[in-house]
């Protein structure tokens, strides 16, 4: 049993100078064989393992991570969480996820600091107004909280914004999801790792999957930098490297991998109290509980596996921030980084069985999958356990690229953070 975290356990451990805290998770050597191997120790992979153990009784599970857990996009994103997506299929998926977010801290006994401070999506052109309203109406009829806010209300939420946008990108209003917000990304990875480990899941870091063993069209194991590991089923959740792993398994994915960057300012006293997204100019901002302005940008224009973003994108993003928030021009960028995002042609994810039996892929979350972390893992675990798509996952199968049943979220969000 794990030690429970609470103010009381903190106080108790203070007496022993914090020397008796147990490990949050073990670092075991891989076993020879598992019922399920999950490739990729990001948020989605860890949640999948957690639910396999918790809801499907499959505890002989390994999560295999080539670096350190949470070190992919999970630990690099701007942590915007919302569920006000336009299409029914997406709304169902992200709302399922948002509901899990709302109970995550308690479920994990790990404070993931899910902060429902509200997410504003600004509309800067008449066309954006139209699309935003369309999305809000769809959200409303899907029972998802989402409301239109007039420019004056935007100003109340974000007093420091310049609504005029120099006449070029005036703020014409926007959508607000009050239940949306941010969370502490690392805590999500760590919290699920700890919870999965407690249920018996082996988390194996510094171990890269280098190939699959496939017999008669069925996967039988993975080859890793720590040797071959047998597995009855394999779930692949490797974000930007999904295409690479699919190649190893002998099929192709309609995925482009590109760097997406983010940056933070030096910490200042809080002055942005909600999340503000401006798709027309590709600038997203929130302020962390440490005081740093957390700013998201657009993707680089070319495909790459480099975990850093190009210079011109930083320039464009910060120009947009300076334009919307002229008083931030004197703020300073403290750190900038990038992650490799896996984008599908329709900006929607893939949660699917594959041409190889027993091999499942969960990818294509692109620029916006952090918010889906708990929901994605939950339905993916169900998909893997039952060898058929969970009902929410059904529309997101690989099949859709053959049938043409795409779930195109581009219109609703330039970059779908």
């Amino acid at each position, binding site marked *: 049993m794990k030690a429970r975290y609470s103010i009381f356990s903190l106080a108790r451990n203070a007496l022993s100078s914090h020397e008796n805290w147990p490990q949050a998770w073990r670092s075991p050597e891989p076993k020879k064989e598992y019922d399920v191997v999950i490739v990729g120790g990001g948020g989605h992979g860890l949640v999948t393992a957690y639910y396999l153990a918790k809801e499907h009784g499959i505890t002989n599970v390994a999560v295999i991570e080539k670096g350190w857990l949470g070190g992919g996009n999970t630990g690099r994103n701007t942590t915007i969480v919302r569920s006000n997506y336009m299409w029914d299929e997406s709304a169902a998926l992200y709302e399922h996820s948002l509901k899990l977010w709302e109970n995550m801290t308690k479920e994990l006994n790990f404070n993931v600091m899910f902060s429902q401070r509200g997410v504003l999506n600004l509309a800067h052109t008449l066309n954006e107004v139209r699309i935003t309203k369309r999305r809000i109406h769809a959200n409303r009829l899907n029972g998802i909280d989402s409301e239109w806010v007039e420019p004056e209300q935007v100003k109340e939420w974000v007093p420091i914004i310049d609504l005029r946008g120099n006449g070029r990108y005036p703020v014409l209003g926007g959508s607000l999801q009050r239940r949306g917000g941010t969370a502490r990304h690392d805590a999500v990875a760590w919290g699920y790792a700890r919870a999965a480990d407690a249920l018996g899941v082996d988390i194996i870091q510094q171990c890269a999957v280098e190939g699959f063993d496939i017999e008669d069209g069925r996967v039988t194991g993975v080859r890793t930098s720590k040797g071959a590991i047998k597995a009855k089923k394999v779930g692949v959740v490797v974000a930007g490297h999904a295409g690479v792993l699919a190649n190893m398994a002998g099929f192709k994915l309609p995925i482009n991998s590109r760097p997406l960057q983010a940056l933070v300012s030096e910490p200042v006293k809080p002055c942005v109290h909600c999340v503000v997204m401006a798709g027309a100019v590709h600038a997203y901002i929130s302020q962390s509980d440490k005081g740093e302005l957390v700013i998201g940008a657009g993707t680089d224009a070319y495909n790459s596996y480099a975990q850093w973003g190009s210079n011109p994108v930083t320039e464009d993003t910060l*120009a947009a921030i300076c334009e919307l928030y002229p008083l*931030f021009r004197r703020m300073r960028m403290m750190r900038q980084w990038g992650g490799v995002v896996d984008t599908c042609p329709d900006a929607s994810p893939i949660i699917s069985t594959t041409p190889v039996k027993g091999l499942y892929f969960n990818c294509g979350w692109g620029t916006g999958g952090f918010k889906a972390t708990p929901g994605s893992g939950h339905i993916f675990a169900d998909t893997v356990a039952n060898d058929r798509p969970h009902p929410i996952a059904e529309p997101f199968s690989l099949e859709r690229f053959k049938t043409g049943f795409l779930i195109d979220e581009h219109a609703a969000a330039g970059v779908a953070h």
Partner: protein
Amino acid sequence: MAQRYRLDKGGRIDRDRPVDFTFNGRAYQGYAGDTLGSALLANGVHLVGRSFKYHRPRGIFSAGAEEANALVQVGEGAATLADLKATQVELYEGLSARSVNCYPSLDFDIGEVNSLASKLFPAGFYYKTFMWPQAGWPMYERFIRKAAGLGEAPLEPDPDFYDKRYAHADVLVAGAGPAGLAAALAAARSGARVILADEQHELGGSLLSGRDEVDGKPGSDWAAEAERELRANENVRILPRSVVFGYYDHNWIDILENLSDHLANKPADAPRQRMWKVRANQVVLATGAIERPLVFRDNDRPGIMLASAARSYVNRWAVRPGESAVLFTNNDGAYAAALDMKAAGIKIAAAVDLRAEAEGELTQAARDAGIEVLAGHGIAATEGHKRVRRVKVAPLSADGRSLAGEARTLNCDLVAMSGGWNPTVHLHSQSRGKLRFDAELATFVPDRAVQAERSAGACNGTFGLADVLGEGFAAGEAAAEAAGFSVEKAPRPQAGNGKFLPARWLWLTPSSKPVGHGGKHFVDFQNDVTAADLQLALREGYTSVEHVKRYTTTGMGTDQGKTSNVNALGVVSEFRGVPIEELGVTTFRPPYTPVTFGAWGGRDVGDLFDPIRRTPMHSWHARAGAEFENVGMWKRPWYYPKAGEGMHEAVQRESKAARESLGILDATTLGRIDIQGPDSAEFLNRVYTNGWKTLKPGAIRYGLMLGEDGMVMDDGVTACLGENHYLMHTTSGGAAEVLAHLEEYLQTEWPELQVYLTTVTEQYATAAIAGPNARKLLAELTDDIDVDPDAFPFMSWREGTVAGVWARVMRISFSGDLSFEINVEAHNGLHLWQTLMNAGEKYNITPYGTETMHVLRAEKGFIIVGQETDGTVTPVDLGMEKLCSTKKDFIGKRSLSRPDMQDPNRKQFVGLLPDDPNEVLEEGAQLVETVKSQPPMDMVGHVTSSYMSPNLGRGFALALVKGGLHKHGQKVYAPMPGKTIACTVTSPVFFDPEGERLRA
């Protein structure tokens, strides 16, 4: 007394130019040449800030960019700057600065209670608490956010502006210390174009703080001579106050130059900062090294600073940073600080040396100078609250892990510490160059370079001055050669070559109690991360260095771990028993030091944020009182309100006039692509859904363009101008995207096609006249175009003279009425417009904007790409299947054969008539077939366009509805907040369904 701690002589300050400034509201004086940090110390001010978590008093700890403690807010109001490092702020007359992160004052900070309860706040405590009740988190968070942040963002728009400049260099040298100056000299002598940048206002780097001689003269004199030679060379650009902060792919280097922050009177017409974007053939990194603090118990009190900083304050700024100093070192080099301090009249209470056998040139010199050297000793504790008062020193056991004897107390007000040196490998690492752990130096040094880059001097792990200079020259020469210049090797200057070694590497100095049981061994000063925190993280399984960093926040402050990262690795390595080289390092991310957002934006703000495009007739529209809409980059007239009119009234009037008599629209903004070449018709055949091979010169055809996915991406008419010559029109907002799409196919998929595309949007101005009187008006203004319907049928074009100027007139219509689009050369646009307006007066010619245009085309059931479509709509969905040729291939055709494209229940294009004719549906409203009392409800479609039509006398809308093509006559409902609007599905064509008016 003013500047009580200023030495009588020496220093690189200008004693003739006193400078007045204030700190926390009190007036002080310093000299030109001071930093805020040196000026404060000259006045005996050591307590300058509070730490982030525990609000412990913090003093000036360094003399440069690595400062973790002395963060200040400079200036007030709109021009205020947050989180500056006092050690980097150049002093100027009138500067006002204050401490950050303390309340109510620096001296008495309530937040310090955190310090009392610090046992409850180990690393990551917040992950373990604030969880009950779960719903209480917003309250906890509000409380936490009160404590967040250091400085304050300005509350008013920035009064300054910023510049950017591109530059190219054969050799870029980052850092102008001895290595950098040598490299620049060597490269410049070869004739190479050299850029030399240094973050400080004076060139010379470490030579400015030391007492070393070069070629028999003071090092600073040698630096001044080098600078003179470089300045005399026109191929050299010297950038002082310029930090090289980013190293990107393909030797792209970013530099931030400070232009006016150091000036008392800041010029209003000059930029504050300039960002240089340099593409360098070769780069020499000569960024020096940063001294490492020692990790010992309570090592964070004001008065405890880096030994090199103490030395700099004495030598460079002529400041006594204390009266009585203790040197705490693990190496020989730091004794230079003790010697220089002693020479400046500071009492050296003792030199506490971790080395069991404290040997070395400088150690010996210190002994000779009468300094007591306590070999094999460590500082086991410190005392003093707002200033260090005394330290307890004790002998160490042989393995250095515990104390081995009685502690002795030394009174002091200054502890100068040195834990060795870390080469400043940030830029090398940013360039993706590899690092190697050097066991002798116990730190990381550059290994393999990935880009055209070389490191020289201390940043390369080279410390003896003669070696540093030699390496600098060699790097400059090699860089120039690699850039194609021939080099004559210069003789190397003479200099001493003392290294800071020998040293003893002990990551953690023991105290009387184990780490975590008493006192705090700080590793990251700004974020209050202690050795115990690091150990806790490891104990809890956060073993990867990235996990340690993220769990404890070590290295994540505004200094980005410049002094803490290697120490943290050392502590981790020791606790885990894993050699440092196996731990790896956390990634060095740009920027090296923080960079102003405004500089990133440069001039791309305000009017230049995104170019504004105006048509040649814009001034007329503005005078006529038009409201404008942003369409792509264009400003388009939206509607022309007359006195007393709102948008609704204006649009009703405009729409009616355009149907009943004559309207005029500025259609200049449509994208135009000139297409030429023998394969043009074939090309059009491939990019549009319909056939183009039969189009004759003089004729025009409408085309639908699909993406590869079969979805509509653009539409417009294309005119055949002659044999193998076409003019394609795109939507106003889609022009650039369409051109890129076409070029991509030409260049990557069909290189065999001989087709040439030229964007000609700007070459023409277009006025569209529409309405029953359009022909009459055109006839009046042209002699050489036969406007007779037979001679000039619908969907054709004629060339001639209109209003006395060359014109190409197209008989096409987006309003659904008889209409001519008159294209003239752009510079004749205003003339054409005015002539039409004058001549049209008798027909009540009425200018209309995009809103009326939308109403008119919607009445006719014409789509707008991006409004009726959203990237998910096929030609079939739009009822335009007949435009998709079955005889040829075109982009998107294959996708159209996918099963889902045949689904009869796809969303299809329809018209909607609200039951209540006065109702105007909201655009974006969702439609259902069955209304439920509450969500969720099954949606069958949404409203894409909706207007009040004066011509239909009612509200009407266009929509996409599941299976809509076969649902004409059925009811759908728009459940809105507060009411539900019932409508009937209809054909989308509400006006002149046979097209008689169009063809009239």
